[in-house]
């Protein structure tokens, strides 16, 4: 038993090394980073973080990202819930084909569709809004949310629905007060995945925004152009992008493994 735990420990160490390096760099001055190798910050500085928290073009990047990710998660879950219910409970014309078609939307290379997306969202006058990015990310998040939720709903016996209807519940009331609470864990896992994929996606987010809704990951590219290559600032900004993800995963940690063990996913 003890010998076995070596593998996860080594793996986690391997995962943490680059992250450690990023965090360590964020506390160094750019001069120190460029002057040579040091395992720990020699002149410990918070200057990089101060810059980010005092400059609106920096901290608005984070706010923008969090805004469109939240909108996307809410939309994705809201429309995926009834759809997943339909897939898990009913047979209807073309249901299997539709399910596979949803899956295929993850396969389109985003790099290609960036320009058409730009044209589409300019045409409907949503360019450079949070809603544009939130809607665009629905392309790959909704199919995944439907997929995950359907798996969870499959684990709920159909008798639950029938009993509720016999007891005189209307469908919306049953859905909101009985059904959704019983697949809470599934909603948590689906929301986590929507958050994750929207948070890390950059290409579409960057293409669909200019100033007002610019994501943090796009703001970061300016460190390379404006005043030379500000590695310290880049590292600090990168470190801060890890934090929201870490918070979210801490909240859903108990659902993750359990969640996938049920049903399809």
């Amino acid at each position, binding site marked *: 038993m003890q010998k*076995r*735990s070596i*593998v*996860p420990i080594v*793996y*986690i160490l391997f*995962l943490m*090394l*680059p992250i*450690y*390096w990023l965090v360590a760099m964020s506390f160094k001055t750019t001069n120190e980073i460029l002057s*040579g*190798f040091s395992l720990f910050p020699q002149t410990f500085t918070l200057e990089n973080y101060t810059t980010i928290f005092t400059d609106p073009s920096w901290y608005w990047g984070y706010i923008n990202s969090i805004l469109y990710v939240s909108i996307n998660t809410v939309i994705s879950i809201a429309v995926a819930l*009834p*759809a997943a*219910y*339909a*897939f898990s*409970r*009913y*047979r*209807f014309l073309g249901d299997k084909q*539709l399910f*596979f078609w*949803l899956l*295929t939307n*993850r*396969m*389109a*290379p*985003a*790099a*290609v*569709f960036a*320009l*058409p*997306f730009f*044209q589409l969202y300019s045409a409907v006058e949503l360019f450079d809004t949070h809603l544009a990015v939130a*809607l*665009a990310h629905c392309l790959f998040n*909704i*199919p995944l949310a439907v997929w995950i939720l359907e798996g969870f709903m499959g684990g709920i016996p159909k008798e639950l629905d029938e009993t509720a209807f016999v007891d005189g519940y209307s469908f919306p009331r049953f859905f909101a007060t009985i059904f959704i609470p019983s697949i809470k864990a599934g909603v948590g896992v689906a929301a986590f995945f929507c958050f994750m994929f929207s*948070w*890390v996606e*950059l290409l579409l987010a960057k293409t669909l925004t200019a100033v007002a809704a610019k994501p943090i*990951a796009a703001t970061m*590219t300016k460190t390379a152009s404006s005043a030379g290559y500000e590695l310290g600032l880049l*590292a600090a900004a*990168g470190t801060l*992008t*890890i934090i929201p*993800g*870490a918070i979210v*995963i801490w909240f859903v940690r108990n659902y993750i*493994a*359990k*969640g*996938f*063990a*049920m049903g399809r996913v």
Partner: protein
Amino acid sequence: MKTENQKAWFFVLPVLLLVAFNALIPMMTVVNYSVQETFGDNVFFWQGLDWFQQILRSDRFHAALGRQFLFTFLILIIEVPLGIAIALSMPRKGFWVPVCLVLMALPMLIPWNVVGAMWNIFTLPDIGLLGYFLNHVLGINYDMTQDPVAAWVTIITMDVWHWTSLVVLLSYAGLVSIPDAYYQAAKIDGASNWAVFRFIQLPKMKTVLTIAILLRFMDSFNIYTEPFVLTGGGPGNSTTLLSIDLVKIALGQFDLGPAAAMSLIYFAITLLVSWLFYTLMTKDDQN
């Protein structure tokens, strides 16, 4: 048993509208570009299937496609067995489980360009942790901006770092869903570890592994941001994967026609391979 109910379509309608809006309209634009030639000022000429022929015959496309297949093949061959092995060795109960899961999931939650930038700095020969260690402690001449092999090793390592956890999480979920009774029965029968793995654990992981392999295939086949930030496709063209090449053509040279034709071919290949995986891996379930 599912009941037949055509009204269920109304439940699916919002999903359908939202996804179709995002999928079909841009797709139509791409199809439109792929059969036209443009001379600026939005003047378009009908071009027929010339772009498709041109792309299918071009050595550049073949080279990028070859690199892409090699990359995806290496990723699957490394990440899937490694992920399963790590999942098998993880504790099943106790305090360490959520800690392990959270730490392992962390790389997946880092924005892709940050991952690229992070690995870029991490591997710099004189100031990065890995680059310094390899060059100055082990004495290996390692510089991914000069050496194509080093660049490939770095890209593969970065992807293994980034995505093996997805396979781990999914396999682990499959493992914890196996009831203890199965293991006890195997113990009574005197089954070896390998037999337990082959006849109990692997079949139980099959559904989640299908998802893991499909997701890893699709995502590694479409990978763009991380290798682009890491190497920019270099040195030379050695790490120019399909998406990177495509963006070079579309936005670098602004050849929309060939780029659109190429993306449709690309999409068709992804679809075909995914469908093959999907049918192969779910074949047994139907019997």
